[in-house]
């Protein structure tokens, strides 16, 4: 069942295509399966780059988990907005840039731009992990403006923007905002049970 989930996510995203912003409703217990599906089954296996913006789990933890899952991380770049806030020693690695905290939204936009420039014309999947953690650190109006700007920019560049969200734990106003800024809200668990 779990093995199906990550490959099914890839198929579903492929069916949607580029230039469509997707709000991916996930359950916390499927988290690593979904991340694997996005990075390995979808981005890597289709020869795309992947920019992973994390405000919930440190990039080092995600990297270790993906290695344990034997996922291909060659085209993976992290924008890590959480490690600095933990005030621990930060391991500098080539595929990662750090933003001091998840409220520095302009800097996140600029880091995405940075990776896109380095990638050139290569197609890119951009994952926001997660709307829940961004909502903890940011005013909803600010977050709305951020998502509007960055998702429109990514759509214009034919990228695949994916916003992870755990709907049960989202405030109503944030959920409504995501409904407005995302073109498609995709409830993964429902799909899994069907």
């Amino acid at each position: 069942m779990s093995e199906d989930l990550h490959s099914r996510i890839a198929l579903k995203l492929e069916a949607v295509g580029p230039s469509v912003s997707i709000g991916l409703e996930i359950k916390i217990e499927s988290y690593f399966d979904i991340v694997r599906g996005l990075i390995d089954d979808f981005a890597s296996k289709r020869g795309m780059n992947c920019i992973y913006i994390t405000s919930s789990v440190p990039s080092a933890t995600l990297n270790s988990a993906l290695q344990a899952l034997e996922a291909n991380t060659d085209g993976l770049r992290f924008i890590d907005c959480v490690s600095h806030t933990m005030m621990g020693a930060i391991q500098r690695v080539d595929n990662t840039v750090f933003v001091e905290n998840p409220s520095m939204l302009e800097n996140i936009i600029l880091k995405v731009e940075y990776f896109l420039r380095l990638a050139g014309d290569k197609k890119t999947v951009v994952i926001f992990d997660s709307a829940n953690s961004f909502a903890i650190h940011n005013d909803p109006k600010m977050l709305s403006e951020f998502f509007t700007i960055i998702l429109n920019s990514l759509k214009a560049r034919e990228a695949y923007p994916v916003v992870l969200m755990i709907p049960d734990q989202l405030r109503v106003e944030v959920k409504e905002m995501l409904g407005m800024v995302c073109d498609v809200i995709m409830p993964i668990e429902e799909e899994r049970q069907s």
Partner: protein
Amino acid sequence: MASERERCVTGIEGLDNILGGGIPTNNIVLVAGSDGTGKTTLAFEFLVRGAVSGENGVLITTVESKSKLLANIPSLVFYDEKMLGKQLSIVTLKEMIDGTDKPFGKADEPGMDKIIASIEKLVIGAKAKRLVIDSIDTVLPDEKEDRLNTYFLTILSEMLHKHGSTAILVSKASTAESGIGSVVDGIIQMSNLERKGDLLRTMQVPKMKGTAHSRAKYVIDLTSAGVLVTTLLKGGI
């Protein structure tokens, strides 16, 4: 209807967008801001982008040695050190002074003429279409000396026009404090914006003669892919 001014495309995409296509050619632009705001990096990229697109440039550095300057600038992916001495010339103030026949003398009009003459010699020698002086604070005798500053900028402007060059003058002084803010053709104000304890680097163009331009404040990042620019989020306020 006035014809569109020819542009010096900086190559810094965000800045060119703000300026509606680039700096009007022959303009003298003041890049002003306090320490750590990205003035030198912006000015250096202006020259490197020019060198890449076939426009030679001269950088007169008055505050740092060449090696220190190059070491402190983010390693730009489009920069090639083979440009040095060819499309891109870096000259220290000392080298510029040593290269003149006579000492600059007093901070008066004849003294200013000598400085301009030595800058012109560099511009001609390098066939430079782009000039950066970093920082202009060191070259000008007194940044609040309006008469001399105006004189200096007037003859610099005439010289640049003669050679079809565009200049960036870097200054640590804020444009409000600086006497030259009112006499340059354009101002790019670099700042640090503190928001809830976070420090964002910002850029704003309050003045640019010869073009319609955005006057909004933008957030920038200094990266190996160059100076990146995005809009400042306001949160619906």
